[in-house]
């Protein structure tokens, strides 16, 4: 999962302090693994260097330095490309997929489209596996089945999530 793209995506809805970013990340995606401050700052400095974010304002005072980051146009493009790019189907992909779905919704993008793209990619791989299975021996079949079932589970989970979040988005929008 790309922390950089996720933080960029979070910035797309408006400039935030590093601390806010951490809190937002933890709230949406970091249920079992909260982000360290260090990870946030090192990531942000990499993004700054690549021109994907800029420092919007600096507040001085007690405590740590408080920089407020904003996303650049290049950053928005980068997020869009990332969201549109299907993930290489593999087991335990859901955290990335989930992040993508939530971000798509948060940024007003179409989750169904993302899902369709991802499904096409999954199916491409599944076709290959199915083909291999049909020609292969028992061991091949078992291995392919294992992969197929996991991919299938990913897709189903993704579909369910998309359906739920679509509904959620509707209620939010309403």
């Amino acid at each position, binding site marked *: 999962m790309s922390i950089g793209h996720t933080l960029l995506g979070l910035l797309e809805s408006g400039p935030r302090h590093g601390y806010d970013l951490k809190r937002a990340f933890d709230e949406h995606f970091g249920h079992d693994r909260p982000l360290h401050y260090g990870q946030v700052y090192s990531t942000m400095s990499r993004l700054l260097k690549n021109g994907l974010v800029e420092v919007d304002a600096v507040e001085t005072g007690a405590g740590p330095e408080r920089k407020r980051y904003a996303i650049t146009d290049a950053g928005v493009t980068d997020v869009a490309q990332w969201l549109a*790019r*299907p993930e290489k189907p593999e087991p335990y992909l859901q955290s990335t997929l989930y992040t993508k779905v939530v971000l798509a919704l948060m940024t007003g993008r179409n989750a*169904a489209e993302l899902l*369709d*793209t991802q*499904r*096409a*990619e*999954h*199916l*491409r791989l*599944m*076709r290959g*596996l*199915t083909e291999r299975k*049909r020609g292969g021996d028992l061991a091949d079949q078992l291995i392919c089945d294992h992969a*197929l*079932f996991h*991919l*299938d589970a990913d*897709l*189903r989970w993704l*579909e369910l999530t998309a*359906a739920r979040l679509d509904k959620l988005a509707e209620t939010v929008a309403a």
Partner: protein
Amino acid sequence: MTPPGALIEASALRKAYGPTPALDGADFSIHPGEVVAVMGPSGSGKSTLLHCLAGIIGPDSGTIRYDGRDLTVLRDGERSALRRAEFGFVFQFGQLVPELTCAENVALPLRLNGVRRTEAERQAQEWLERLEVDEVAGKRPGEVSGGQGQRVAVARALVSRPRVVFADEPTGALDSLNGERVMDLLTDAARASGTAVVLVTHEARVAAYSDREVVVRDGVAREVAAAA
């Protein structure tokens, strides 16, 4: 945009049941020998699309060309004759005539086309063997397992050597193993005989037997090209 040489080519199909639109401008095409999965959530209009393509129901508007003929202008009797002669069907359940034996069920499409009984039952027997269910030939559908019954149904869909088989959730009532067997046999047999298959399913593992997929959402069919 449909590539040339399509066997079935449908565009801008609209069909409403009462106030609810089931199809809302759907496009579709399939080439000879191609296996196309029609996917989408429940209620998206998958089955309605299949029924329209097969000429079972007429769309409210839009065109369907089959092999150069416009299906929407054919009369009911002509469409029936077309389905008898050139199409095969597999449904989820409730499709075998319960009082006929499996062999007689398979022979039914041939007999409806006027093939003599002995000849029809001989060909039915061949197809049952090909689908590895020849041992149930003399049994009634109520006496065979779901997987066997579905294979009998596949045999029946293929026995008249149709140019297109329409399969609506053919594995919906089966477990994984039986479902896979049915899909293996169906797609193998279809590819071997150059039969196109329109496969309505909501399962990715079933759709994985197809050459490409079409997604129906809110009555609109879209083709999503996979990133190469």
